[in-house]
Structure formats: C-alpha cells, structure tokens
C-alpha cells in the first residue's frame, strides 16, 4: 500500500472498531461496494443538471458511509461537495466530484482487499 492510499483509509483502526465482528464488517463493505457506484452516478447526473438539492442529499449519504468506514479524507471531500451544493458553487462541485470519484474507486479496491483478507 502506498502512502497516498494509507491516508485514505486506516485498516488498523477499522479492524479495531469491528473487533470480533469480521462478518459484519464484510457485509458493511459489500453494501458500500454496491451503493457507492449508484451514489456517484446520481451525483454525476445531479451536478450535470445543476440539481443542488440532489447533490447535497447524495453527498450527505455518501459522507455518512465513508465516515462509518473510517475513510475520513474522502468523507471530508463529500462534505465539501455537500457544502458547495448548498452555496451554489457548480464549478467547484465538478472539481470535487472528480476527486471524490477517484478516491472512492481507490477505496472500493482497498476495502474489497480487506474484506477478502483471511486475517480480518
């Protein structure tokens, strides 16, 4: 794992928070893996058509999931997108969404690896 990836998500922290609950963590990761592409698709669509309420709401949901999985850096990006929608900053939303998509894709891979790891 490179240093950029390490800052996205702290596997040790997550394992500690789910100590003794590996199966539950696997299920939560599976839900994240299923919902993230849907939420990002909705966000992309909402940003394109300038639907600030939909951007705000969807970013809020994604922020909640990211926070629950200890992905604090990416959760902060989602929070910024939520805020940008609230303050009508469409140009900023485009930039933030691009970063969010990139980080989320990386996170999905990392969390999948964790879920498949025998020592979880």
């Amino acid at each position, binding site marked *: 794992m490179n240093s950029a990836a390490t800052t996205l998500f702290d596997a040790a922290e997550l394992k500690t928070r789910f100590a003794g*609950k590996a199966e539950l963590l696997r299920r*939560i990761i599976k839900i994240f893996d299923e*919902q993230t592409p849907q939420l990002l698709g909705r966000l992309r669509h909402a940003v394109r058509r300038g639907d600030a309420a939909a951007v705000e*709401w969807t970013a809020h949901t994604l922020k*909640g*999931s990211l*926070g*629950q999985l200890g992905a604090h850096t990416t959760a902060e990006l989602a929070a910024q997108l939520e805020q940008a929608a609230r303050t009508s900053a469409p140009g900023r939303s485009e930039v933030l969404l691009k970063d969010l998509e990139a980080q989320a894709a990386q996170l999905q891979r990392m969390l999948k690896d964790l879920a498949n790891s025998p020592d979880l």
Partner: protein
Amino acid sequence: MAAPAKILIVEDNPLNLELATDLLEVAGYAILQATTAERGIQLARSLLPDLILMDTSLPGMDGVEATKILKSDAATEHIPVVSLTANAMKGDEETARAAGALAYVTKPIDTRTFVKDISRFLPTAKSSR
C-alpha cells in the same frame, strides 16, 4: 419468557441501517426498520415499539419533525426517542431534545459501545432476549 424489546430504527442509509440492525439484533432485540420519517411514524403508531432510534437527516420530512409528531401523539408520546445524527455540531443536541428526543447518539456508529448506548434508554422492564 418476556418478549424481547422492540426497537424501531428510522434511517435512510442502508449501510447504517444494516449496521445498527445487526448490532441490536445480535444483542437480542427485535428490530423494526423504516427508511423514511413517514414510514417510521406509521410503524410507531401501529406496532408501538419500546424505543425509536431516529436519524435526524432523512429525505423529505426530517427526524426532528418526525420526533415532534410522535411526541404530540397520545399513542406514541410515551415511546423514548433517541436521535442518531452525523452532525456533531453544537446546537444539534438541543434541537433534538427540544423536539422531544431523550438523548442523542452520534455517527459514525461505534460498534463497541452502540448497544450499551442505546439499551440504557429502554424502559427498565424491557430487555434483550
């Protein structure tokens, strides 16, 4: 043996709903689920849970408004409501309490303390299986 305490969880994010449900079910509680405030109010009125865990941010009617409605209804006013919120901001606790919530639990959910945090608000005669 007494029936397990019934807890209604009103939460729109499937990830948080699954997490809260699993933790409380494993602890022996019977769980009812709603993903909107409107459905939560409907279930509270018809099934009279022993406790309601209410997300404050919900699509459409929010959890604060739903709590106010439940607390102004003679059929549901006695049911303790615990607010669940991601907004760890000053003032949120007051807002939830002003609406009638008994307490306030912040997200992200801590799997190590969540059950204890919630179960202490159940009426004492009710417990887990």
